[in-house]
């Protein structure tokens, strides 16, 4: 999968040069996007709907056969994707879902360990529908981590969860990231989520990275911290919401 097109080096986990993507209506979704993600770096991608976030993520996941365009993409061998819906096969029990497609005798053992890591030890034999939304998403996380990815792509993975569950999931994702250290690209529309989780936040607009912010807040990232608030204001401004107060309804 990881071809080495001219001009790309192999030190970073992800390298994108001059990426163009458009769908049938010819309106470009990505127009000349450049992006580098270092190995083990956690990057969050913000942007209004229609800004091309999901298109970028799908291009990295190799799921954009329906789009046309040019550009060089370099991704590692092992890529895992977490979707907004947990996308568990309803006819397979939880453990079978986690180890889906894995081969070898160690698969089941690794699957159990991954489930234990996301706090679902003992639920191996449950059907997906018997789990809550948050638990299902934790299974999806276990499914992606059991493959030891070098790159984890997450497309608004907590978008469908309630606020409390989402906060818990932030802690879990960060802890799993610290332990496994994959490069992460998290697509989200939640500015606070991006600041809490990522090392670097990108704001996508009209198909290019318009703003970039390294998050150098130390220790626990507390939304009530003034430094946190400053970053939030900056990112909201980049998203076109000055101060986060003005409410503008825009059709994208």
């Amino acid at each position, binding site marked *: 999968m990881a071809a080495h097109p001219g001009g790309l080096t192999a030190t970073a986990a992800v390298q994108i040069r001059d990426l163009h993507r458009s769908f049938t209506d010819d309106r470009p979704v990505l127009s000349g996007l450049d992006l580098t993600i270092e190995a083990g770096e956690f990057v969050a991608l913000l942007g209004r709907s229609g800004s091309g976030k999901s298109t970028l993520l799908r291009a990295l*996941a*190799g*799921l954009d056969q329906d789009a046309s365009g040019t550009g060089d993409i370099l991704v590692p061998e092992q*890529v*895992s*994707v977490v*979707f907004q*819906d947990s*996308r568990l*096969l*309803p*006819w*397979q029990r939880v453990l*079978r879902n986690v180890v*889906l*497609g894995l081969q070898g005798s160690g698969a089941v053992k690794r699957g159990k360990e991954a489930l234990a890591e996301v706090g679902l030890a003992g639920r191996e034999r449950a*059907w*997906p*529908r018997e789990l809550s939304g948050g638990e299902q998403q934790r299974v999806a996380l276990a*499914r992606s981590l059991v*493959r030891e990815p070098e790159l984890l792509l997450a497309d608004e993975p907590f978008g469908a969860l309630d606020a409390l569950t989402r906060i818990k999931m932030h802690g879990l994702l960060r802890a799993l990231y610290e332990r496994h250290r994959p490069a992460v690209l998290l697509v989200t529309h939640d500015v606070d989520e991006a600041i809490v989780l990522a090392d670097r936040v990108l704001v996508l607009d009209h198909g290019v990275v318009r703003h970039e912010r390294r998050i150098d807040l130390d220790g626990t990232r507390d939304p009530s911290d003034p430094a946190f608030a400053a970053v939030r204001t900056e990112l909201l401004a980049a998203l076109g919401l000055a101060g986060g107060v003005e409410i503008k309804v825009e059709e994208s």
Partner: protein
Amino acid sequence: MTAVVKGTAKTETAAPAVVPPVDDEELAAGRASRPRGKRRLGPGKPIKLGYLIGPLLLLGVWIWGSAQGWIDPRVLTAPWTVVTTAWDLWESGRLGPDLLVSARRFALGLVFGVLAGLVLALVSGLSRWGEAIVDGPVQIKRSIPNLALLPLLLLWFGIDERMKIITIALGVLIPIYIHTHNGLRSIDGRYAELAETLRLKPAAFVGRVVLPGALPGFLLGMRFAVTSSWLSLVVVEQVNATSGIGYMMLLAGTYGQTDVIIVGLVLYALLGLASDTVVRLIQRRALSWRRTLED
């Protein structure tokens, strides 16, 4: 306005402390009397052995009508006569072999039909070229009744067992194909996307995603297939056979033995009902991951 105020004042003076508690009690009673855990919409809880109620009702009408003399035994033999006739046929060694021959035809036709239908559905469901080649002929076959095909099948395959089993299999193939193909094509495309990101091999994709996803459709097709298998059996056994339940009935028709005909019909009915029950049980067990109106 003033009248209203007066009115409330009046009730307050009449029973100021009593009225509110009564309201509360009524509310509480209302809540308690509402049956707990009962769904208002949907067919309700499953009735145990409920599928037997309809057939038993029919049997009851038959018994009652015969006992009252409303049903002429020359038109429809009384149930007890059917039982004794069946017993006599069995004792004389006529029923057993015929039943065995019929059951064998049914089973073989079903197995070959299901296999063929399944393979065709997979070929047509998993590839556009497969669909282009397979789907049309199957739809054409679907609109041709087995009975109309029979003369041709007789010419091609003769009058032996092979022709009978092929005829049955041709009838079974259609519902298996239609429902499996439909079940396969209605699998959520997001699962295919997931399989892509997990880099599932084609065999694993078929085994873990396609087949389990198409299973509900396949099992529905199975229910039609089982019935269709018995139907085709009747046709082939009454048109050209020297053994089997259908042949027994045909012979009885020539001699005006209504009771033997009814024995054959009852046997067909019982066998059909039994095989449908088996499929339903399999359905229940195999699809336990689902929660539908059925449960």
